[in-house]
């Protein structure tokens, strides 16, 4: 990627990249598009157990056949889960968003209520309803050969406007928000891009390829790990928190000095 970038100034480079990219996209398309429930092996037993869990915990909103439900006035109680895939279940249940405590603008991240095994069984059941994105495997998340620069670039163009450049989160309309990404598991970030939970748009592999997603995940992990070389990051919210800090902590220190200076010695 770096080599490509360096050559970009050649007039013909664009054509070369375009051709390469076309081939790559085509290849990726072929390789990743049909990723579905079949890519992961779930036993019939998993599916059956998952169905039990589903009926007990989810069916009240999503319907007994996961077909989705509406209340009397036509508002959606829970959307249809046919075709959302195992990834959606793993994300929603694995981050504790589902089962939802009460309806509101948006489901919140909270400690998961199902253990890993139960989450897997639920995922198996939902995956069996129709083809959809599967849970990414280790390889898809490996940051070993990831291109951080590419990940950062994709993140800034596609994600930072909602999640903030540092992944600190941001506001959407009418009480909805894009959550903070710090401390979120890699696979959950990946699944969120793939399935577009709640108001987040879907970034399937046709939009951001599997390797690009891996780069984004790796970039976020790198941001987390590198810390803040300048010191306390103040939540990475930028100039506002910096200004608040100047008006509170720094001003208090200065006032303290001034009062000491102006007071008569004992």
């Amino acid at each position, binding site marked *: 990627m770096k080599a490509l*970038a360096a050559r970009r100034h050649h007039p013909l480079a664009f054509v070369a990249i375009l051709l390469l990219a076309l081939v790559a996209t085509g290849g990726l398309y072929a390789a990743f598009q049909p990723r579905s429930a079949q890519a992961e092996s779930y036993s019939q037993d998993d599916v059956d157990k998952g169905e039990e869990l589903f009926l007990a915990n989810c069916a009240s909103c999503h319907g007994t056949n996961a077909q989705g439900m509406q209340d009397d006035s036509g508002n959606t109680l829970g959307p249809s889960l046919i075709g959302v895939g195992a990834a959606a279940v793993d994300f929603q249940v694995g981050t504790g968003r589902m089962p939802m405590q009460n309806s509101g603008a948006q489901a919140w991240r909270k400690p998961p209520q199902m253990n890993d095994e139960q989450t897997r069984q639920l995922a198996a059941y939902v995956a069996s309803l129709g083809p959809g994105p599967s849970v990414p495997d280790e390889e898809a998340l490996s940051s070993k050969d990831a291109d951080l620069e590419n990940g950062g670039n994709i993140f800034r163009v596609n994600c930072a*406007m909602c999640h903030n*450049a540092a992944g600190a989160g941001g506001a959407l309309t009418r009480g909805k928000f894009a959550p903070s990404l710090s401390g979120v598991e890699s696979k959950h970030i990946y699944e969120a891009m793939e399935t577009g939970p709640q108001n987040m748009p879907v970034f399937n592999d046709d939009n951001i390829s599997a390797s690009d997603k891996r780069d984004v995940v790796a970039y976020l992990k790198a941001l987390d790990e590198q810390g803040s070389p300048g010191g306390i*990051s103040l939540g990475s919210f930028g100039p506002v928190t910096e*200004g608040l800090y*100047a008006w509170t902590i720094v*001003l208090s220190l200065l006032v303290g*000095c001034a009062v000491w200076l102006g007071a008569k010695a004992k």
Partner: protein
Amino acid sequence: MATTTPTRPSTEAPEDSGSEGRMLKLGAVGGDWLDRRVSGAGLVRFFGRKIFPDHWSFMFGEVALYSFVILLISGTYLTMFFVPSMDEVVYDGIYAPLQGAHMSKAYESTLHISFEVKGGLLFRQMHHWSCLVFMVAIFVHMFRVFFTGAFRKPRELNWLVGFALMVLGMVAGFTGYSLPDDVLSGNGLRVVDGLMKGIPIVGTYISMLLFGGEFPGHDIIPRFFTIHILLVPAAILGLIAIHMVMLVLHKHTQYPGPGRTERNVVGFPVFPVYAAKAGGFFFLVFGIITLISATTAINSIWVYGPYDPSPVSAGSQPDWYMLWTDGGLRLIPGWEFTIFGYTVSLNILLPMVVYGGLLAFLALYPFIESWVTGDDREHHLLDLPYNAPVRTGIGVAWITEYLILAMAATNDLIAVKLHLSINDLTWTFRIAFFLAPVIVFYITKRLCLAMQRQKRDLALHGEETSKVVRMENGEMIEIHEPLNEFDRWVLVQHDDYRPLKAGKGVSALRAAATSFFFKDQLAPVTPTELREALEHAGHERHKIDELTGGDYRTPDVRSH
């Protein structure tokens, strides 16, 4: 300028004889050698024993001055490494997540300063923190001057100079904030471009001239660099010089107190006490800013990424002193109309008018107030803020309006942190913009009047001793300890103002204005009132003493 020799308090100077010889020699250098070359003695005589009053609230102007010095020092260091160019390079520094990225030389050199120059990040952070402190100090200093009435004759012009310094500080800050050419500041510039385009007729021309073509172009960083390191600092230095000269000419104001009059200044001489205190204070401010820069990150531009017109980050705000200029842009509804086929963007122009109005009011306030009061005297004794309830209310209302605009500019962060709806917040701020200043003005004025009443009682009756005596007729009386004359003086020295009636050289407008300012004014204690109060207290005291024989202990305690 006339030279005064201030009255030195009569103390025997404790000097040990050994060092006296050396001190004399140093004195000779200042008094003689320099004098024969640059009239040094006259300067030493003029400045050496100039008197400055001591109060913590007088230090914020100094904080501003000192943080400006730190800005110059750290800024000079940064210019040694910064490359003000928008030419494109491919990054190959140590920051892995940007290796291979295309960026401007300005951004690359800022990364270089942050990560590869020893002490570079420290100086960058010191430069940015001292900028924030500079602006904080200017505002606090302005509030102090405003609320104590220090802007009154003869200091109106110095108020204007200070006001200009505040505006220049904003320009310096904004141009500096834009220099690293990162996504955050780039989007700030884009907003500026949008604002300029919104100006009728000439807008698009101004935009093209500033950016050297279409936004972002290749010129804006080098141009801002020149403005930031040459034009604005030179203007600030010049105005600081004028500010200081006027300060020396007027001599510093002082709070009212025993022995302090409109005709004197009570405090400590520049040499040696103030030289040590003010000089030392520079190092204190320097130390605090350095400590903050060592421990707290500011403007981590590598997280924002190199500027590109496509990306933007949630929570995109300018530095705090520019926040208020963003707030109005968020609150204004989408008003725009077309006249003869030409577009008029009220959603840009109206906020600008509001900002201009707020600034103009602040700048002109001394002249407005002196027109109302008709007060032509020189003022060197400060007002205590509660003795000027309307002025204090106006000041707090102004700050409230400023704060609402600044908070409106952070509505997305407030929404996400407090889990509120950004739309509801916007509406709340829209309503608060009109209501809050009025309410705050009223509350502040009432609080001031309540304090005046309380101070008035204190001056007349003294402090409560919490000793209560029941008289023979069942009346309960608390014994008050009268104030000493020094403490009382602070409470009784201020002037009284009365509203004027229209006619006899007073216009109806001015009469209304004086009524607005002074109709609820509480008259200060007069000598007659105090005499009566003291007589009354003495009379009561006499009765109590007769009853108790001067022994205020309760009978059961007494019997033991």
